[in-house]
């Protein structure tokens, strides 16, 4: 347990250092374009599965399962968003290509998804 917490703490320190290094190279313009581009690409990928799941909500027996699938798809969208954000950012700034962006990607994904899961649990408790 202690090792796990130590690792988490270490990864968080790495995350802080890496984002600091990334921020040295980026500009408001490239970050904005990367955010919008990543949101768009992730949306394109996730839209069809989400729409198909929404189409199936008429099956009342499957409502709970479909709701969980929908939450998982939203979490996947977040994962895709952060993946493409760093891909696009590296595309704009060659200096960042050498930096390991996997840790910032996972840490930010984890933060957002903890929030999504909390909201989902509250909504599920109210509805079901």
């Amino acid at each position: 347990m202690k090792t796990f917490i130590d690792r988490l703490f270490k990864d968080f320190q790495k995350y802080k250092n890496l984002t600091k290094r990334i921020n040295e190279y980026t500009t408001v313009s490239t970050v904005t374009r990367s955010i919008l581009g990543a949101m768009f690409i992730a949306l394109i990928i996730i839209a069809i599965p989400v729409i198909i799941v929404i189409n199936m909500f008429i099956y009342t027996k499957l409502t709970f399962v479909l709701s969980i699938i929908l939450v998982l798809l939203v979490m996947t969208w977040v994962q895709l968003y952060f993946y493409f954000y760093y891909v696009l950012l590296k595309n704009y700034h060659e200096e960042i290509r050498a930096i390991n962006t996997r840790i910032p990607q996972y840490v930010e994904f984890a933060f957002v998804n903890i929030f999504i899961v909390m909201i989902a649990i509250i909504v599920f408790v109210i509805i079901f």
Partner: protein
Amino acid sequence: MLKFLKDNLKKIVMLAFAYTYVLFVAVVPIDYAVTAPGGLTSMNTAFVIEGHDMPEEFYTIFVYSYRPITRFQYYLFKNDPKMIVSKMTPAQHQNTIIDEFRKGQISKFYSYQTALIHAYQMASEKDDSIFIDYGFEGLSIYSYPRRLTEITYGDVVIEIDGKSYEDYEPEAFFNLSEHQNVQYKIKKASGEIYEVTYEQIANDLPFGFFEKYEIYDAYPHFETPGLSSLTGGPSGGMLQTLSIYASLLNINIGDKKITGTGTVNYNGNVGRIGGIVQKIYTAEWANADIFFIPISHYPEIMDIKVSFEIIPVFTIEEAADWLYENFY
């Protein structure tokens, strides 16, 4: 990135076509509607009767109606025996979701009033301390041609061609409305009175009415908190009546789960409803024990294998007598 796009242009264009097609099938609505199994609504909190507990064993059934559906949904549901996929009617085309909601709420109000009147009347035959005093107050508008913009759902017709509701029995006054050219005197909820001259033209939505009753006094006193719920429609009339009847006479149902469907009209006849097959499947999934059904629907569902007892009835009195004989 641009290099990648140029190198794979052919594949990207093909994928874009496939993507657009799938998106089109799953998003663009078509001219069809679907009725699907829904769920049960407990009658336990729908009514509050002074000095009596509402039994927890009575449930009305609702089904889901979606329109328009997408082509993907059409392919998915068209061969499913638990669903009804049908072309949208002119009324479904013209009415918005808000219109449908208002119609559902008006018919539910009518259903609640009729249920209370019948339940109190039937219970008063067994217990003479129970009474209800009510009166007919006109025809509540449930459907109307959309070109008559001065009308709103729930307005009450008090005169038809100069003949007042006060001079007629509800059914006779209702029958006066079956004209193609007619003059209505109508009262709004605010008390304002206006007149409408109606001449039927092609593709008009027909006028639809519910008899409006006002309950002046009743013992035991009652409240209807269920009227504020979102589900609507008149099809719960029979179960609403039975739950009030069981409450008034303190009928002990035990641990049986009683459900069913059917409107109840002024004469006590149990009327037909929509989505009967879907309601049967809903009751099966909800582990019902007893299902009351209008007798005219029975041939449509007798081939469906279910684990509950089906009680076909013609009138609400038959249903109440069955309940009284089996549980009192």
